């Protein structure tokens, strides 16, 4: 097996753990793995952006009608060059296998989670075009059970500017499943927070009380 990013042969590193317990085979070589950079987990309490206790974007949301919608949240990785390449290959070149690259991190973050894990969906047309849902695949690879509560309306944020994004009104509606009191919203990339705020708002109106968020990457 070769590294799934640089295609160099993987060097087998024996370990005692590997002898006695099953370990998922490593997909990346060490140099590729080292290119990714984890967040320090001491930043914005809502989105995990490094720096102030409440980042600029979240401050805006709190001031503009989305106060106390999200209880807390975190992001696992920074959006550096390696992450951009990974994201491009995963989401746009549709390399589904790459979902497994961060399986361990996502599993660690969610394995002891009691609240319901709710992935952010894509709209059906996009889903058919892409042939997979990037958030669902991340959770599947991590072995985390999840439940869809939302459906995406027609609009996508991908091609919009920052202002247009933050002014978007209705992105999601419910799919009819019962909404529990506690839940964790999961998405791949957090850019301005519009997606998360919109999703949280829809769910809060349907009766959710504590909404936390987890994103793989904070841009």
């Amino acid at each position, binding site marked *: *097996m070769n590294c799934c990013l640089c295609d160099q042969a993987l060097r087998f590193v024996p370990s005692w753990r590997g002898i006695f317990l099953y370990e998922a085979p490593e997909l990346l070589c060490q140099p590729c793995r080292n290119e990714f950079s984890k967040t320090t987990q001491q930043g914005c309490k809502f989105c995990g952006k490094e720096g102030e206790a409440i980042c600029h974007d979240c401050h805006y949301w709190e001031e503009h009608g989305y106060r106390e919608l999200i209880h807390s949240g975190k992001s696992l990785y920074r959006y550096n060059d390696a992450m951009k390449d990974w994201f491009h290959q995963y989401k746009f*070149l*549709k*390399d589904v*296998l790459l979902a497994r690259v961060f399986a361990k991190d996502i599993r660690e973050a969610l394995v002891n989670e009691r609240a319901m894990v709710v992935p952010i969906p894509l709209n059906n047309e996009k*889903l*058919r075009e*892409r*042939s997979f849902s990037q958030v669902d695949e991340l959770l599947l690879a991590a072995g985390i059970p999840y439940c869809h509560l939302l459906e995406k309306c027609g609009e996508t944020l991908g091609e919009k500017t920052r202002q247009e994004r933050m002014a978007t009104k209705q992105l999601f509606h419910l799919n009819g499943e019962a909404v529990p009191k506690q839940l964790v919203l999961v998405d791949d990339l957090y850019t301005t927070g519009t997606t998360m705020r919109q999703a949280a708002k829809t769910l809060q109106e349907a009766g959710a009380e504590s909404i936390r968020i987890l994103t793989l990457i904070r841009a």
Partner: protein
Amino acid sequence: MQAIEAFLTGRIWIRQFIPFPQELVQQAINQGNAIVLNGISADGQCARCLEKSPDYVIPYACASCEAVCRYCRTCIKMGRISSCTELVVWRTPSTVNAGLRTFGWTGDLTPLQESASKAISKSIRERKDHLLYAVCGAGKTEILFSPIHEALQKGLRICVAAPRTDVILELSPRFKQAFPDTTIHTLYGDSPEQSGYGEIILATTHQLYRFHEAFDLLFVDEADAFPYSLDPSLERAVKKASKPSAPIIYISATPPKTLQKRITGQSTIFRRYHGAPLPVPVYRAMWNYERQIRKGNLPLPLKRWIEDKLQKQQPFLLFFPSIQLIDQVCPLLHKVDSRIESVHSKDPQRKEKVMQLREGMLAGLATSTILERGITIPHLQVAVIGSDHRVFDRAALIQIAGRVGRSAKDPTGEVVFFHNGITRQMDAARQEILFYNKEGRV
């Protein structure tokens, strides 16, 4: 010839990416001119790159067709192909476009080049594979012009494939000059779209995946070079891109023994076009160079060598075995002279830096093996640091030594192997260069 026919003939293309209206594509399929293939066959082989290893053909739950599909990771950079992807192949054979062609090349061939050129033409007429075994700087491209001209006039479709984009980009203007009234397409990673029916295709070996029984004649340049030698899928691509009876001409300065045994038609040129012998590498011990560099010291023999070249104002290349080592050594080299830069395969400014070295704006370049082929700089001097490392095999070392003394004005130069122990590969490379010089003597 219709535009869509000109585009699709010999190609294998993802249906929705064909740059023509879908109605036109559908019409061609209805009329039986084109057929549709599944992206991945039932037994798990990619129809475009012929990959079938389960490490690269990956199953997943596909939301488009709501079944388990497989997709191919080997050629994913060209647009992903999965089981439910439709590939279009043109079926009707195209009309042969034979006739007189202008030959815009007016140079002279040496007698050795001349006879190699004739031998290749003969192999092509007999539809046999051929190996052109010629040392670095023998003038290989010029040898090909006359056989290609002959083949063009018979209406053959020709492809010249080389492993690297740099090489293709260098060949392109020379071919356009030599064949001014022929449609030539230059294809590489993100090459611009080119219209019409390409009679000569200059392409990186990867681009061959996109052709299907297209060529009547195929030249594989640098037939031993990375990634060709490591990658069996590219070898399959060469076979797939050419018609079953098409002759394949391999060109190499360091052909692997297997190739030499397999192909009966061979021509060898062990002399450079200017007639001077190849520079023979010199060994110089530099013990524990890795540790010294890691600790922030430039090893003394290397430092002296660089200072000597700086004083003589000769441009130089320093080959290093790993990018990591280049990053460590770069600040140390800057201390010696700020005009020493570094390049590696991931460097976007690679081309600019090589140009600067050629123009004398840079004194020297520290590089990975990426520059081992296809570059010509007058008065160039070369040092290999850690020539005992396993990335420097016989072929790589011969290629590196071949960078030196390429111009007729200054056919000499220095090739130094700084080593941490002499390896068999180093000896093999040196022996082979000595052998060329002996054979090549008049």
